[in-house]
């Protein structure tokens, strides 16, 4: 038999057969998913993910939803974030249990010690009026005047920080919780990934806020030398050190980066915390900017209470699913009883609503507490300045007027404060 010989039987050409086989093998190797295949895969994964999520199989659901996200289903992203948050929460709970078993008495070395003990939870639940409510109420009821309004925003944050600091030793963890209130103007949030200049400005704003915290803490009469206060100072100092050393931005943090960094942020990896800081300050900046521009109030406010626990992880998901249209309002119901709520309210308040708010009428705006409970704003006090435990915090606006004149430009109205601020 020779290769060159022709096939003895009519019709069968082995050379053609070999060529056909080669072509078909090549085609099989090059077989790639068509767009229809991808869509099918994506939605099947999404469907399975939803099914598993509904059955509280969060680990399974996460893998399927990840596939769905990878194949481009945006709707799967918040659910994926939800799974992550739940899984992280479970991990954190397990970790805390382990730590508590190993270290019954922990020192308060600053925010690096992430205390989510039961006592802390109890204290948080008692004295921690939903801080977002305090601030929002304050905003609603404050006359539209740039300096005052903005200083109130910062003042309330500081007030809460200080109040927490005075109240219990668990307050060493409060500095970050104090800025857990985020007034996230959706418009700004939409612009944020594009205009990274904002981030730099916000970073400075956050730094300024902490500098104020430090200076005011030092200046405050009766500043105790209690352990927790020293720990507080140490924590602030560490934060500032990280802030000053950080060459911002080290790289562009996408929402996905931030989301993935949430576990590290929970572990107080300072670089990650520093990366999160501007985002946590977005709301403050947005609110102050809107007021600075003469808006009666933030027309659209996304009030997301963030804590160092589950809700904190939800922030990127809230951010990622930001609506591009204003006035979009949604609340995500629990996937099923027991599933933590996704905490978000996005609300466009009309002028009439604003007037009602200023008039103190309860409007029933639903806000979510860090614990996942639903609160309404009605019934809470409408004081311009939330009363802290100490009467010396009567009106922070009188003491810390801060003007944000533009991105990256923070000016203190008071000379002494300004001097201290610039001195760090």
């Amino acid at each position, binding site marked *: 038999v020779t290769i060159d010989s022709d*096939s003895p039987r009519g019709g*069968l050409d082995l050379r053609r057969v070999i060529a056909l086989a080669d072509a078909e093998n090549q085609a099989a190797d090059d077989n790639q998913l068509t767009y229809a295949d991808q869509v099918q895969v994506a939605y099947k994964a999404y469907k399975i993910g939803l099914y598993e999520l509904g059955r509280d199989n969060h680990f399974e659901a996460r893998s399927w939803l990840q596939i769905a996200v990878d194949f481009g289903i945006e709707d799967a992203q918040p659910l994926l974030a939800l799974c992550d948050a739940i899984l992280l929460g479970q991990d954190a709970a397990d970790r805390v249990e382990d730590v508590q078993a190993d270290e019954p008495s922990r020192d308060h070395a600053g925010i690096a010690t992430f205390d989510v003990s039961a006592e802390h939870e109890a204290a948080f639940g008692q004295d921690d009026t939903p801080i977002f409510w305090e601030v929002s109420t304050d905003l609603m009821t404050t006359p539209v005047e740039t300096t005052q309004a903005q200083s109130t925003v910062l003042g309330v944050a500081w007030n809460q920080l200080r109040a927490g600091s005075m109240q219990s030793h668990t307050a060493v963890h409060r500095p970050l919780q104090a800025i857990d209130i985020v007034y996230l103007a959706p418009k700004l949030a939409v612009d944020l990934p594009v205009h990274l200049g904002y981030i730099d400005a916000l970073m400075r704003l956050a730094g300024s806020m902490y500098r104020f915290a430090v200076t005011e803490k030092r200046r405050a009469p009766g500043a105790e030398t209690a352990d927790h206060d020293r720990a507080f100072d140490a924590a602030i100092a560490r934060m500032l050190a990280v802030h000053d050393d950080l060459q911002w931005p080290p790289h562009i943090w996408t929402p996905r980066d931030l989301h993935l960094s949430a576990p590290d942020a929970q572990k107080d990896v300072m670089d990650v915390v520093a990366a999160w800081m501007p985002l946590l300050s977005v709301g403050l900046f947005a609110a102050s900017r809107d007021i600075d521009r003469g808006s009666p109030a933030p027309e659209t406010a996304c009030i997301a209470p963030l804590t160092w626990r589950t809700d904190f992880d939800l922030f990127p998901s809230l951010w990622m699913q930001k609506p591009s249209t204003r006035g979009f309002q949604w609340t995500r119901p629990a996937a099923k009883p027991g599933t933590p709520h996704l905490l978000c309210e996005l609300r466009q308040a009309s002028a009439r609503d604003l007037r009602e708010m200023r008039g103190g009428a309860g409007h029933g705006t639903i806000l979510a507490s860090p614990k996942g409970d639903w609160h309404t704003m009605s019934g809470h006090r409408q004081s311009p300045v939330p009363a802290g435990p100490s009467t010396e915090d009567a009106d922070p606006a009188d003491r810390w007027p801060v003007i944000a004149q533009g991105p990256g430009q923070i000016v203190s109205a008071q000379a002494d404060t300004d001097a201290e601020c610039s001195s760090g």
Partner: protein
Amino acid sequence: VIDFSQTRGPADHGRAPLGCPASIAYSDKALFALEAECGAELESYVRATLRGDPDTMKVVERCWTDLTRKWKRQGELREPRALLFQLAHQRSIDRIRQSSKHDDPYTDPDRLAAAADRMMHTAEFESALVARLDVRTALAELPDRQHRAVLLVYGYGLEYADAAAILTCPVHTVDNLLRAAKATLKQSSRLTGYHQVSSPSSPPEVHK
């Protein structure tokens, strides 16, 4: 010369069980050799199965293409000839179903007649009294596996190895099936009364 029926020897111990055919690496030369060895039988089998279907050669070509694809992809095949006949059988059945004939290749009357003819001339049935029609009827009543083996070997004229490939059984199983088929035929009521020679040494049995 490539021996497509060679079995694995002791030197190949460890790669595959003894008795298994040695693997044959793909080469164009090997493919041409295989075609020269069994191409005619394959084509005649497909022609017989498809009964004059105009696309017979397409089916044959498809079988060779499938074999070549698999052979090239795997690099070597242990029994390319057996695979080729299996492919031919399956492709033929596909083609029959595709053409809506719904004819089983094992019920082809021509093949049944051919099998009866050849069976009548075997030593076991060497008797002038045996009528072809009776043998055909008796063949149709054989158990399925025996019927298939008889039809493939005697009806389509395949070698035992090729029939074994189609029946997906060892060669000796085909032999056993044929023996069993002949024994069944001897007991068949269709052939009762005819002289049948079970073995040359034994006297012919007389059936009433």
